[in-house]
């Protein structure tokens, strides 16, 4: 099973052990209203269609997957559709998903070249709406700017509620990294976080990958996570 199983792991975003996503990990001070709304949608207290947009590493996928997990815990049927993998999928995978309580569609920008996918998404949107079920779509640009050829899909993005996700500030990123580290069973000191954020790619995806490496490196070296240790690790990877 293991060999067979590992062959299936072809997901582009590998955050290692930090991929175990919890809703609380999505940290933001400014979007508490959105988090509350998603909680309600996931639990079935509220029915809505949302469009979330923002640049890479603003937490869109994270939020969608956390919503799926919450919905699953509430015994609701849900599906996460990662459109960045459409080369492996067919639009038929969306057929009849309108019967699910919630469908989360990620990376809408990836269907800009496909009218068939866009049209199938319009059908799915209608189906979910008609059935009184919810949908959360995420994309990398506002509804006005996202590259879509079917205007019916674009106008549907404005039909529900629209939220822009901002890039977290450096302070927020540090808090997220510390939370992830804590969840994984180790401490990530402030000074190390500060040191890291000034020296590597500052987007959250890159930071989480490095955090993963730091954890492995400290275990291998059998040393505590300190600035000198991280410096040594970064130098050794140059």
């Amino acid at each position: 099973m293991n060999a067979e199983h590992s062959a299936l792991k072809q997901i582009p975003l590998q955050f290692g052990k930090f991929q175990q996503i919890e809703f609380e990990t999505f940290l933001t001070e400014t979007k508490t209203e959105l988090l509350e709304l998603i909680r309600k949608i996931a639990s079935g207290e509220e029915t809505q269609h949302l469009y979330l947009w923002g640049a890479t590493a603003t937490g869109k996928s994270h939020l969608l997957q956390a919503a799926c997990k919450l919905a699953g815990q509430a015994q609701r049927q849900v599906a996460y559709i990662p459109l960045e993998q459409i080369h492996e999928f067919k639009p038929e995978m969306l057929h009849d998903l309108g019967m699910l309580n919630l469908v989360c569609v990620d990376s809408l920008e990836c269907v800009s070249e496909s009218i068939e996918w866009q049209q199938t998404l319009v059908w799915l949107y209608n189906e979910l709406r008609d059935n009184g079920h919810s949908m959360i779509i995420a994309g990398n640009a506002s509804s006005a700017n996202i590259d879509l050829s079917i205007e019916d899909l674009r106008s549907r993005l404005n039909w529900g509620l629209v939220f822009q996700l901002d890039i977290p500030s450096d302070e927020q990123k540090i808090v997220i990294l510390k939370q992830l580290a804590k969840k994984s069973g180790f401490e990530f000191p402030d000074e190390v976080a500060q040191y890291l954020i000034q020296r590597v790619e500052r987007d959250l995806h890159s930071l989480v990958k490095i955090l993963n490496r730091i954890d492995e490196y400290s275990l291998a070296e059998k040393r505590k996570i300190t600035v000198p240790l991280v410096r040594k690790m970064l130098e050794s990877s140059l």
Partner: protein
Amino acid sequence: MEQLEGELTPQEFNTWIRPLHAIEAEQAIRLLAPNRFVLDWINERYLTRIEELLNALDDTGEINLQLEIGSKSTNQPEATKIESRSTPVVKPMPSTITAKTVKYSNNLNRSFTFESFVEGKSNQLARAASIQVAENPGNAYNPLFIYGGVGLGKTHLMHAVGTAIYKQKPGANIAYLHSERFVADMVRALQHNAINEFKRHYRSLDALLIDDIQFFAGKERSQEEFFHTFNALLEGQHQIVLTCDRYPKEVNGLEERLKSRFGWGLTVSIEPPELETRVAIIKKKAILAQKVIPDDVSFFIAKRFRSNVRELEGALNRVIANANLTGNPVTLEFTQSALRDLLIIQDKQVTIENIQKTTAEYYKIRLADLLSKRRSRSVARPRQIAMAISKEFTNHSLPEIGDAFGGRDHTTVLHACRKVTELRNTEHRVEEDYNNLVKTLTS
């Protein structure tokens, strides 16, 4: 489930396992997949492991696992079924799908009725014609051709016609479908040697309702088949209703003989709703949402959101959602605050001139350079960002934006917008600059 969740990535689990629904029976578990694609995916990749996990829980090792297409709500599996025993004995999927598996349904949305359609000057004629057609299918206007922009109610009227015909004549053979679905059905029928059944089905309908026929453009084989279907239905005095985003003669890539036939019945347009209709729509939607919306708020939203009904409803949805979340009453002040970012665009507070000036100041370059022909990176990048912001935050067209930036072509603006979208995703600096500029412009 917990064990499997631990073994798969959250993405895999959320995509493939969570949509499944399990039903326990005596010594058997029925696993319902929402469609064939998911069923095949599960069958090929996860079924063996699911069986292993199930049998580990059961001492007898005799749990019978059945993978079927179906859902929690229907709990009615379709014909396709994969059954297995404790030692994985998975029956293969049928390699060929017979004509029996090509199913057709009417797809009518019963909530789209004439009663739930808000009438106004902009849609009066289209509504009246649709009612005529519904009362006298095949004889009043055939075909009925409704055209207009997105979100104005074309599809709503079309469903209303179908639903009304069905009410008068239960059992009537009616089909509502998008033109792309017609094309997909035809391709599927060709693949499965079921084209005769496809022809028989569509040519025997009492009413055929096809949405967005502009998507037939350039699909010659589908146009050919649709042409014959169209003729057969018209000959038999069966009703055809079509919608399109433009006047039939203006659809490029559509055969002339089809364009001319589309004009045989009645062609009516739907325009964006006027103020009174927009207010009426808000009031109707508010009642449906069981929310009290004061008149001044209805008028405020209706005045600010003009282009289509979806945009209008989106604004109302946001006000209601904010009110529900915060527990505040819906007042004019509350509404203005809840819609603040949308209103910035509506109000056109952000002008191209202001964007250019702010961008030049932000990057510490001269305004004249921003508008000049200079193409050095230090000027070109800020110019592209200013163009992208102009596209997003003003209602100016691409040629107008190009003109305002030193007489550039609209394709240059389009390129700038795409480039900036790409850079915002890949370069942190660009994303920060963009957001800082937007904050400065809109605060």
